[in-house]
């Protein structure tokens, strides 16, 4: 009898062997791993482009690259970091963690999951291939404003449009999968308000994605038609309006920036409660704050375009609605601080990155508030102050969230503890270099240095040299991160199932063995 049971027991077979395991996998952990490695490779690709930019800006004048190539570098650096690093990394974390955080055996639509991953290498293969074409790649900035991206674009813009379509489809499919999983696959007893905050953050993010990615698809389709089929959506000669492009783009673009930060909020909430050894302060307010941020993100888009010429009423509306976002964001920051308050804190690497996240993200938030002030924005618009602002929220914000999550869950993924000494070294080098890189950008920006130029006025030379040195330091330090991750995969101290002291009570993922088995929660756990 028992032999019969065993031959029919498909629940415990391991992964397939060789390349086909990765090509045809429907396992959420495999796909999560694929996403994370893809994002890691893209981090170094986009990072290399940042190094080219900083090398050119090390001194005033043109030394290393021509302006045409410099423009391609800034454009592709932005596109790759936004769509190829931050977003796939969070989708990878979602794939790995959502099912085991809600006690589900896998994602709701595993084959769709495979498709949404494999669309990504295709999309970025197309995008990066344009750099090797005679006319060069997209060179109109990651925001691809018309008419720069239509009338004056290189013909490779068509590849860019197709690539954006493909990555959009990938994101939409991934989000549909995530929402379906969260709604239908939770373990019995796990009500919505008992879900881990990372799951909540992703539920909200996925809704933002399916709401705005189709708008992005629409706007690039309009571009395609303007370029190839003689329409005039953004061409004033035919009755269109280039400003319309900016409105439609930022209607997508502003929710997009919260898509990149909300999952980091979820990650940081888990890490801070784990290492403060206290449950998160104000769980419900955290959920409502994220939901408010998401809803508000749809009515603030025009703060990116105060200088295009808007009626006073419009400028005031978008100024106040933007400032309103500081309230739910402030609630989150205070809740994190309150969680740490009187906790028995230890400073392992994920916690260090999370504390740095809270502090530095707040700096980025404050410069955002400065930019929200209409009269001030007229001075700051398109200067390095803006560059400083969004790098503060995206690098020590979103990227620190991803790095912290990697250290936090790496023992669960690999079964091995990472090297704590190297981890701390990585943190301090990263923390110092990120500030050397991005803090002086505030100064040169306030002094009037415009963004996106390969050259600058002489008075900005000293700060730019400092920024470049910081950037090279930051770039090299991430090789150390790669080394630590590979070292942990290859071996290390065996991690216990709960990994972190007391984490066993904080989430279902810590009840699994380390590494998490290939198939987990085939029988749903009971959540009290």
């Amino acid at each position: 009898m028992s032999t019969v049971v065993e031959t029919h027991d498909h629940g415990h077979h391991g992964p397939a062997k060789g390349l086909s395991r990765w090509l045809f996998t429907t396992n959420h952990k495999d796909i999560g791993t694929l996403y994370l490695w893809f994002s890691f490779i893209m981090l170094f690709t986009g990072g290399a482009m940042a190094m080219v930019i900083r090398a050119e800006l090390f001194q005033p004048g043109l030394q290393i690259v021509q302006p045409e190539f410099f423009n391609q570098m800034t454009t592709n650096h932005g596109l790759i970091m936004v769509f190829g690093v931050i977003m796939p990394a969070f989708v990878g974390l979602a794939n790995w963690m959502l099912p085991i955080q809600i006690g589900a055996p896998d994602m709701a639509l595993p084959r769709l999951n495979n498709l949404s991953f494999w669309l990504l290498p295709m999309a970025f293969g197309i995008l990066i291939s344009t750099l090797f074409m005679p006319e060069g790649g997209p060179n109109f900035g990651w925001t691809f404003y018309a008419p720069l991206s239509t009338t004056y674009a290189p013909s490779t813009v068509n590849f860019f449009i197709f690539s954006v379509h493909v990555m959009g489809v990938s994101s939409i499919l991934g989000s549909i999968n995530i929402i379906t999983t969260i709604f239908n696959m939770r373990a019995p007893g796990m009500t919505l308000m008992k879900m881990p905050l990372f799951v909540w953050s992703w539920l909200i993010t996925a809704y933002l994605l399916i709401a705005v990615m189709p708008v992005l698809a629409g706007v690039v389709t309009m571009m395609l038609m303007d370029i190839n089929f003689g329409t005039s959506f953004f061409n004033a000669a035919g009755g269109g309006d280039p400003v319309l492009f900016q409105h439609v783009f930022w209607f997508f673009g502003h929710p997009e920036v919260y898509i990149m930060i909300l999952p980091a909020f979820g990650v940081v909430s888990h890490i801070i409660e784990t290492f403060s050894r206290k449950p998160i302060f104000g769980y419900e307010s955290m959920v409502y704050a994220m939901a408010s941020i998401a809803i508000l993100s749809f009515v603030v888009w025009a703060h990116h375009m105060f200088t295009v010429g808007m009626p006073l009423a419009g400028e005031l509306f978008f100024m106040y609605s933007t400032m309103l976002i500081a309230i739910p964001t402030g609630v989150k920051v205070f809740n994190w601080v309150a969680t740490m308050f009187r906790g028995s804190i230890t400073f392992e690497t994920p916690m260090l990155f999370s504390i740095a996240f809270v502090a530095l993200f707040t700096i980025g938030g404050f410069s955002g508030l400065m930019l929200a002030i209409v009269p001030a924005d007229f001075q700051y618009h398109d200067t390095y102050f803006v560059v400083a602002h969004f790098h503060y929220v995206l690098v020590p914000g979103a990227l620190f969230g991803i790095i912290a999550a990697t250290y936090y869950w790496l023992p669960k993924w690999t079964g091995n503890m990472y090297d704590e000494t190297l981890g701390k070294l990585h943190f301090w080098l990263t923390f110092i270099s990120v500030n050397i890189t991005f803090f002086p950008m505030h100064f040169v920006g306030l002094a009037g240095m415009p963004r996106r130029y390969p050259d600058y006025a002489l008075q900005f030379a000293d700060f730019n040299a400092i920024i470049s040195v910081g950037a090279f330091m930051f770039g090299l330090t991430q090789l150390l991160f790669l080394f630590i991750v590979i070292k942990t995969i290859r071996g290390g101290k065996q991690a216990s199932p709960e990994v972190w002291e007391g984490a066993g009570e904080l989430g279902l993922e810590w009840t699994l063995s380390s590494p998490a088995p290939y198939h987990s929660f085939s029988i749903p756990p009971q959540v009290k």
Partner: protein
Amino acid sequence: METKSTLRNLVGIVVGMFAFGWLLVPMYDVFCEITGLNGKVTGPSFLSEESKAITEQRELLVQFMTHNNESMPWFFDSEKSQMRVLTGNQYEATFVFHNTTSKEMVGQVIPSVSPGRGAEYFHKTECFCFEQQVLAAGERIELPVRFIIDPALPKEIGSLSLGYTLFDITDRVKSENKLANL
């Protein structure tokens, strides 16, 4: 089964938002028309009865600006750069078009009034805008614009500028004619 209905709803949202993205285009036009955003001149070419009832006139400055879009080679300018006008009266301004090239070309002018809030008070009773101008090689023409400034113009607007941008639509017209002759 639950999965299927969730899926159906989510695909519905995706399709709906894609449609909404396209809907933003006409919505933007309507929005601009209502608010006078972008200085789109949308007011009727006549004064309303209420405006006619306003007998009080005031003086203000109307300035003319002309631009050539991109590489449009024509000479295009107004005869006077500005006029002092009284609200409620009709005035005429003359604009010069000169095709300086050696081939026939088609041009079109698109107007814009600044400040945008004043656009709806700028009534043009006759205008060459929104009409295609076909000029033979070297041809020079003068075209008038007749306009009335609405007496209901808000007090805080002391001057209005009428900007004209001239576009080269030769290729566009040619390809349209080709299509028509098919």
